[in-house]
């Protein structure tokens, strides 16, 4: 008898708990239902949400897209700003638990991470192949945003890189802008040494934990951390990587590098005039031009190249693309993207005019906005230059583990700077990568 009562009590407790849970869900559903009915009665159309980071860039781009949207279906776009790390984290936790509840319809993902999401969560994303003209976008973007012949990402900004350089410092050291066009890393280092002698300023900043420079160098030579399959590590016997590591070490040994440990120090260094050049992606333009007192003293020239086979003066750093989650509202979200980022040429002009964002939709990359000279860069039409380079960026498969390899290489790079043999460095990195990425 005692046991029976005990059982009954237990069951009652559990029932109460379960009821509580249900109650909550019901109320949420009710609320959602209310929202929906409200939405339709107001005639606001289907609601879609989008997550992105950087209010001055990606969020602004979304707002412009919202204004530019002229499709047949009425849409109500809600833009939510999240830090990139938070987006990555939330996507990972939600998608791995197999739910899309609380997830947005449209999400921005950095290209280096795209394959990781696409492959780790098959069916979580909605293919856009039927919505956009894949051939109209820059090749190198398609490579990273598609999987098994299906196009999942709508390519957005280009991370096309250039060498931002201080023309006044160059002159002080006896150089002109022409002397830094299409140079090699060896020439770059020589110029850096001369500038340091003449002005006392370092040539560039580096963060030892951020291998962006190495990544840019190897992509400029058409290779990556991986073979073309995107999963076999390609570190040992990779001549471009070898040359990149050597160039990095020479930079360090020439004593022309200011060490920084985060973004604000990085920006502070060139804003304060402590460094003569910034080799990085074009998205740095707003940060460079933020220091108005330096107006007219900057130029953008092609990225220095490695001295290996297949090396070029164009490369890429970062850049991201839009993805649609495979949940309710996916068609509407895909239509919205296709109507704006996927086909609207005028919209791309606005992107340039309003926020200086350079897209990768080739038909949209011409016109007045692109040719206009930029006062800050002494009249140079940097947008035209960047778009021209964008088309020539060597396409590589970023694979799924770029950041994992980055961390392995960052350790080995320190060892190399401390006089470990380069071949050993790369072979050790290779074997570590192979064990880690099994």
């Amino acid at each position, binding site marked *: 008898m005692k046991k029976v*009562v005990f059982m009954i009590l237990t069951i009652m407790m559990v029932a109460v708990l379960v009821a509580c849970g249900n109650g909550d869900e019901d109320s949420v559903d009710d609320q959602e239902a209310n929202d929906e009915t409200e939405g339709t009665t107001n005639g606001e159309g289907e609601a879609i949400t989008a997550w992105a980071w950087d209010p001055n860039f990606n969020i602004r781009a979304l707002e412009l897209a919202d204004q530019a949207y002229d499709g047949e279906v009425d849409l109500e776009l809600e833009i939510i700003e999240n830090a990139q*790390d938070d987006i990555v984290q939330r996507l*990972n936790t939600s998608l*791995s638990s197999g739910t899309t509840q609380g997830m947005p319809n449209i999400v921005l993902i950095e290209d280096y991470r795209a394959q*990781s999401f696409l492959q*780790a969560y098959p069916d979580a994303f909605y293919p856009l192949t039927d919505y956009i003209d894949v051939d109209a976008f820059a090749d190198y973007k398609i490579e990273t945003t598609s999987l098994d012949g299906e196009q999942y990402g709508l390519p957005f900004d280009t991370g096309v890189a250039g060498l931002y350089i201080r023309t006044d410092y160059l002159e002080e050291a006896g150089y002109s802008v022409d002397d830094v066009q299409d140079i090699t890393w060896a020439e770059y280092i020589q110029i850096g040494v001369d500038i340091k002698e003449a002005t006392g300023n370092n040539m560039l900043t580096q963060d*030892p934990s951020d291998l962006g420079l190495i990544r840019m160098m190897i992509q400029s030579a058409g290779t990556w951390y991986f073979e073309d399959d995107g999963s076999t590590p390609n570190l040992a016997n990779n001549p471009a990587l070898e040359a990149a590591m050597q160039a990095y070490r020479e930079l360090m040994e020439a004593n022309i590098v200011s060490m920084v440990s985060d973004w604000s120090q990085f920006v502070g260094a060139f804003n304060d005039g402590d460094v003569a050049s910034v080799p990085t992606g074009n998205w740095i333009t707003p940060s460079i031009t933020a220091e108005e007192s330096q107006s007219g003293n900057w130029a953008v020239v092609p990225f220095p190249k490695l001295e290996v086979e297949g090396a070029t003066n164009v490369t890429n750093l970062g850049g991201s693309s839009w993805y649609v989650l495979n949940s309710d509202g996916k068609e509407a979200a895909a239509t919205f993207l296709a109507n704006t980022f996927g086909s609207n040429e005028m919209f791309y002009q606005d992107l340039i005019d309003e926020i200086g964002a350079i897209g990768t939709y080739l038909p949209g990359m011409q016109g007045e906005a692109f040719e206009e000279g930029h006062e800050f860069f002494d009249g140079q039409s940097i947008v035209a230059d960047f778009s021209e380079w964008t088309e020539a960026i060597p396409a590589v498969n970023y694979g799924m583990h770029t950041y994992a390899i980055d961390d392995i290489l960052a*350790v080995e790079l320190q060892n190399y700077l401390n006089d470990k043999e380069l071949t050993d460095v790369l072979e050790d990195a290779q074997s570590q990568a192979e064990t880690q990425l099994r």
Partner: protein
Amino acid sequence: MNKLLKKNNIGWLFVLISIVGISLFYFYPMIDAFLLSFQSGMGANLEYTGLNNWLRLFDDPTFISALTNTFTYLIVQVPVMIILALVFSVMLNDPTLKFRGFFRTAIFLPAVTSLVAYSVIFKYMFSGNGIVNQFLINLSIISEPINFLTDSFWARIVIILAITWRWTGYNMIFYLSALQNIDHSIYEAARIDGASSFQQFTKITVPMLKPIILFTTITSTIGTLQLFDEVVNITGGGPGNATITISQYIYNLSFEYTPNFGYAATVSYVIVILVVILSAIQFKVAGDKE
């Protein structure tokens, strides 16, 4: 019915609530995480791989450096902090000291600051053109700024300094309150017998505080094993994994790289195992029979 409500049944009923809660929110996730530690794969595509994850630990250089870093912090920082906290508490317990309240508050204050906020401040203090470098340059102790955050040796020192600053006051409070329970007559008797202050400290204070010292050592050890915020915010684990901790590695495995929750769970269980082993050792060494 009356009979049923008698005895302990009502008591059990009350206990049941927490039992259900704890099982649901503690034991179930623990067991699930343990099962997860035998699985591997990307994101949602997990499958059982037997002991592979556990074997992988042994030839994973990142894990090994995370483990060594964590132990470096543990071995260097915990004793320094415990001794400092002890010394401070004894000094601040001296009834003849003026402004005792002020000093106590000042030393305890770091413990109430947000982990992220103080980490960011430390980061700026020790940056290339930060206040510490400027101070040292102005005093002509150094001629070129020290790369505190981008040099592996200095980066570790900065982390140790930061956590010591943050947690010393916290531990001091435990000692201070325990000191209130030591009978004054013991010290009086010691003084009459001619014991010096130092002897009083080592022969009376420390033995009397032993259970508290054990407690703080264990909590500090566990805290150090779970170290995350400071490292992520001050150095980001760099340069080249020189300051990475186990917790940060778990985070990286789950959210920074292509997620492998299975292997991340394995690494998490390593922390559990370490906490159990270290606590057992500390109990043993402290010789506490209870």
